[in-house]
């Protein structure tokens, strides 16, 4: 079985400060890891993914994520937060294909001016 934990329901940061949204996972075999963002009344939007290779992956809108195999983590980061980054963020994992992903319960990011 595969699972994802997003330990923080809510993350609050000031605009211009760095942000981190945490994710840990459990899966058999090699993980494929994804971050998605959801805006109100919208579907999920792909941000970035880890398949293999460099542990630091870069994605859309200046976001990046660090894969740590020993800690089974895949934290989402951004050096300088924008108010427009405020949204609901989901981490997902699969060991087969993305269409069978297991998602975390999400973290609400609020960036204050």
């Amino acid at each position: 079985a595969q699972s994802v934990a997003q330990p923080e329901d809510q993350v609050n940061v000031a605009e211009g400060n760095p942000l981190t949204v945490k994710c840990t996972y459990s899966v058999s075999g090699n993980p494929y890891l994804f971050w998605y963002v959801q805006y109100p009344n919208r579907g999920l939007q792909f941000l970035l993914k880890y398949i293999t290779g460099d542990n630091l992956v870069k994605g859309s809108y200046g976001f990046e994520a660090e894969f740590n195999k020993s800690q089974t983590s895949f934290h989402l980061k951004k050096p300088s937060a924008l108010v427009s980054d405020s949204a609901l963020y989901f981490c997902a994992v699969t060991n087969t294909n993305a269409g069978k992903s297991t998602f975390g319960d999400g973290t609400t990011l609020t960036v204050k001016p």
Partner: protein
Amino acid sequence: DAGVTQSPTHLIKTRGQQVTLRCSPISGHKSVSWYQQVLGQGPQFIFQYYEKEERGRGNFPDRFSARQFPNYSSELNVNALLLGDSALYLCASSFRLAGGYEQYFGPGTRLTVT
């Protein structure tokens, strides 16, 4: 290019009724997955179809069924609706089955069961 489309946007049904939700994937995408997202939770995997064949099923009762058509569009059917079926139903498509291909989600169908 058009993204993933879903219809209807909203739906209100009564307990015991049946509902059909529809999804059109991005052109060229052959994999379609369905997810249920209950308020305050992440999406839960229901079904995956690829090339018109079921490739995976989540932990949902037999009241849930789906199919994929030759044009790769898909329908999700739910019979004997329960109050607990109220949720946002998301459809997602991806280019291939391989693990590294990310999903593209539609806006969802908001189902309310009264």
